[in-house]
């Protein structure tokens, strides 16, 4: 029985009503976990501490190449990245899927016109650090290193024109203006991150 329990816990996230939980997301206001990851295209690793020292805000986007839900947001992520560049907001894609090698990530970015850096999280270690569970899943870190937003890009994956709640954009606008974020934690359906 103990072996069975160990196996189940090792293969999946199992949450019992008693409170056993393997996915722990840092609360809003807490320090964002530090990491350093190489770009999928190769080159020098990118450290979170370097990014937050250079930018007003840093947006971490856990994304995928084969998840239709993540792909529904490709153009929206690219647009957001362009729209907030002048406000000194950095956008970093992070691919933590074990099943998607770096070469696929590069090819996918090229074919979908994604120009923001995409980092390869081998072993899903950074996804574990952040408690990220799905793609796309967003974390916004301010210049002090504090987590200020966690959740979705918006509520309408199907129809960009029908979006009523542009939650990431609302969060960025509020943080840039020095106002409280209207909804600092949001949820949406998405593909599970494929861990090793």
């Amino acid at each position: 029985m103990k072996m069975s329990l160990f196996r189940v816990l090792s293969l999946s996230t199992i949450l019992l009503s008693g409170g056993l939980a393997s996915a722990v997301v840092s609360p809003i206001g807490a320090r964002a976990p530090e990491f350093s990851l190489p770009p999928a295209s190769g080159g020098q690793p990118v450290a979170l501490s370097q990014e937050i020292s250079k930018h007003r805000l840093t947006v971490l986007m856990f994304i995928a190449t084969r998840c239709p839900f993540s792909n529904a947001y490709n153009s929206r992520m690219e647009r957001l990245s362009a729209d907030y560049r002048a406000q000194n907001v950095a956008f970093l894609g992070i691919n933590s899927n074990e099943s998607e090698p770096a070469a696929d990530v590069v090819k996918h970015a090229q074919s979908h016109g994604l120009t923001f850096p995409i980092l390869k999280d081998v072993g899903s270690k950074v996804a574990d650090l952040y408690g990220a569970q799905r793609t796309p899943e967003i974390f916004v870190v301010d210049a002090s290193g504090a987590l200020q937003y966690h959740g979705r890009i918006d509520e309408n994956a199907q129809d960009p024109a029908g979006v009523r709640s542009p939650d990431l954009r609302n969060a960025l606008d509020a943080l840039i203006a020095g106002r409280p974020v209207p909804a600092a934690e949001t949820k949406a359906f998405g593909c599970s991150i494929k861990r090793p």
Partner: protein
Amino acid sequence: VIKLLPRAWAILFLPAAISTATITTVTPTQYRARIVAPHRGRVLAVNFWATWCVPCREEMPALVAAGRRFSGEGVDIVLVSADFSSALPAVDRFLRGFRVPFPCFLEESEDPQTFIDAVDPRWGGELPHTVVYSRAGARLISLSSRQTREDFEFAFRKALKDE
């Protein structure tokens, strides 16, 4: 012989007819009453999935096998699809193709967060996701990401032993 032909055709198509799941929509406010409450007295596993979700499709045969094995022991299984309503034909095609014998609902909400929170405030919305309820209708076990048949059966045994 001519009179028997229609019956013969019916027999030929019977397995497919039995395996066809009925798909109706369910809103966040209807979730407990329409999905959980009717199964009081039996263990219930609600599997959240979508046709666009590869691991959801991959784990379905394991869920079907585990569900068939435990049906006689008091376990019911219900599917809830997070597909867009426009994908209803694809949902139906998938369920027929895999001869999935469970009822299937289509999640319907203006904001998916309201549905996710109605199921479990601790769930982030990742798919696949399965929630196992006790015979009393209490949320007992949540399984995130793709499961094996053994994973499902372990959870069902645990839920059956509860109380």
